[in-house]
């Protein structure tokens, strides 16, 4: 996925993954990504996963790189962990923390029916909800929240929370665990499927389309098993839902080439984003 040609300055580079601590970049890789952004004015977003204390120390080292980057005022860190949020919040807004996709909970079960068009995007419940929660996030410098466009809708009351959305387009994360299907590939059975299984980053080599083996299953939603997560591939309706959500709430859309890619681009100019998606959204 590339940013809109000639308009790279309007885009924001996402680097990192929401899902797996093993894939946290090294400080050196982060510096390389910052340099790859080149002299453009593109914003930079480091994406981080849920972490244990070892992972949090690694995030701290990455934060140190970002804090000393000349473009730190436009830098963000997506956090999918309350500890990581505290860590980033201590940096005082440079870079800014963004609440990650795993932190904003609502159902994205591909077996559920989408809401009727008349029900709008908040057809189901709205979560998370309270103003007090919004104030808590604000006190930690959170202004943006990442969401997936999934079924049934994007039921987040952004206004109540005082947040703007970054809506991911292409895939919606459905489920994620510490135990990875792929990590055990090269391991004996006894070493497979633990949260401490050492992997060879097999997720960089393989992914799988998955379907219910039951021919009479109620859903035939296109699902992908990538890394330690399952994703639903967006159909046109879910893409439109994402664009509508970003438009209504002053947000942006985030597009990555594959569900588990470590780089992505985001665009807040939605007319441009629509044209961009038409050319870049993987078929």
């Amino acid at each position, binding site marked *: 996925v590339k940013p809109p040609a000639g308009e790279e300055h309007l885009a924001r580079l996402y680097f990192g993954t929401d899902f797996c601590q093993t894939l946290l970049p090294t400080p050196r890789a982060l510096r390389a990504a910052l340099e790859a952004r080149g002299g453009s004015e593109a914003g930079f977003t480091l994406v981080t996963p*849920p972490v244990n204390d070892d992972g949090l120390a690694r995030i701290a080292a990455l934060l140190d790189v970002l804090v000393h980057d000349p473009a730190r005022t436009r830098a963000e860190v997506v956090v999918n962990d309350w500890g*990581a949020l505290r*860590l980033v919040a201590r940096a005082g807004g440079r870079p800014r923390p963004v609440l990650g996709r795993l932190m904003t909970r609502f159902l994205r079960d591909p077996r559920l029916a989408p809401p009727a068009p008349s029900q709008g995007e908040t057809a189901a419940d709205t979560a998370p909800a*309270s103003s007090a929660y919004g104030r808590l996030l604000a006190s930690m410098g959170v202004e943006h929240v990442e969401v997936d466009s999934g079924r049934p809708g994007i039921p987040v009351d952004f206004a109540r929370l005082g947040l703007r959305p970054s809506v991911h387009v292409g895939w919606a994360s459905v489920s994620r*665990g510490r135990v990875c299907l792929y990590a*055990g590939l090269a391991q004996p059975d006894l070493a497979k*499927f633990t949260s401490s299984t050492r992997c060879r980053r097999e997720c960089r080599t393989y992914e*799988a389309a998955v379907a219910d*083996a*039951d021919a009479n299953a109620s859903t035939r939603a296109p699902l992908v098993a990538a890394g330690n997560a399952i994703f639903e591939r967006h159909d046109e309706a879910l893409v439109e839902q994402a664009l509508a959500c970003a438009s209504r709430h002053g947000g942006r859309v985030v597009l990555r080439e594959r569900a588990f890619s470590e780089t992505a681009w985001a665009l807040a100019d939605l007319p441009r984003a629509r044209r961009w998606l038409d050319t870049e959204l993987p078929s």
Partner: protein
Amino acid sequence: VSAARPLRIASPISVAEEIDGLATAGANELYCGVLPRAWVDRHGPTVWLNRRGPDKANLRSFGELERLVARAHQRGLAVRVTLNSPYYDERQLADAVVVAKAIQATGADGVIVGDPALVLALRDDDVPLDVTLSSMAAVHNVEACRFFVDLGVRRIVLPRYVTLDEIRTLRQGLPDVELEVFILNDGCVYEEAHCATTHTEGAFCMTDWRYDFARLDGEALGADEAHGLARNVEAHKRWIWYVTNCGGTYTERGIPNGPCGLCAIAELADLGVDCLKIVGREAHPFRKRRSVEMVRAIVDRVNDGGSADEARAASREIRETPEHCDAGFMCYFRTAPEARNP
């Protein structure tokens, strides 16, 4: 083994009549859920007040809860009540606070909460209940725990698949916080807190998936690669069978098969874990009682000075299924050999 604090055993319960059996079996604490009719009327049967549905797992009224609490207290058992949905919407959140106040009025000792917005609401409303953080909050590091401790949480249930090394680090960083870990039954294929599916549609992770693998570089899979991937899927399906209680089976003597951390109890005691959680509020009373007996047998052995090796041997003996123990897939605290000896 030098446990700083005696290990406690938290047992699930769904009706007051189970109390005597669970107390006799050796439980120190009970946890339960309540699903008042008013909640179902207002939010419908598919919006759960806690992590279990409206069938067998929950008490039906605060009156029932009050009787359960009184009887439990007579037996010296504390009672915590689950309010551990992953999130509540605006209306549900307000109602959950009302429910929490009603729980407090029954004399219950605390609530188990997973939604940070509810933790915050209980604090802001001065609801005088001890708050235990549910595994639904998915905290794996000291900073994350501190986030919730600052909001008033006093005990933290660590998520499934936390490792012994991680517990050690958490305990060192959180000397003033009670830590609880899963010890028996009901695993989860994914991180429960990071699963956006609903069990009202059946367990998504138990779907019999058909995998169609591809290389990301566009090259065709080689025969060896395809074979290795297929073999890995077979192993993964075996692991899921263990995680989901070995298909709900029991041994001939009625020992429930399924996820188990008995072997690690001596180490957990040594690490300063405070409480061992048995899962399964909805289970048959016999399974709950048997589960408590199993955990109690090992905890007593450890408290009596038994070594970690002795505790492990006793655990295998109690389980009666050495073939399942040897498979490794049933263990809550299995550490990958490479990680143990890098």
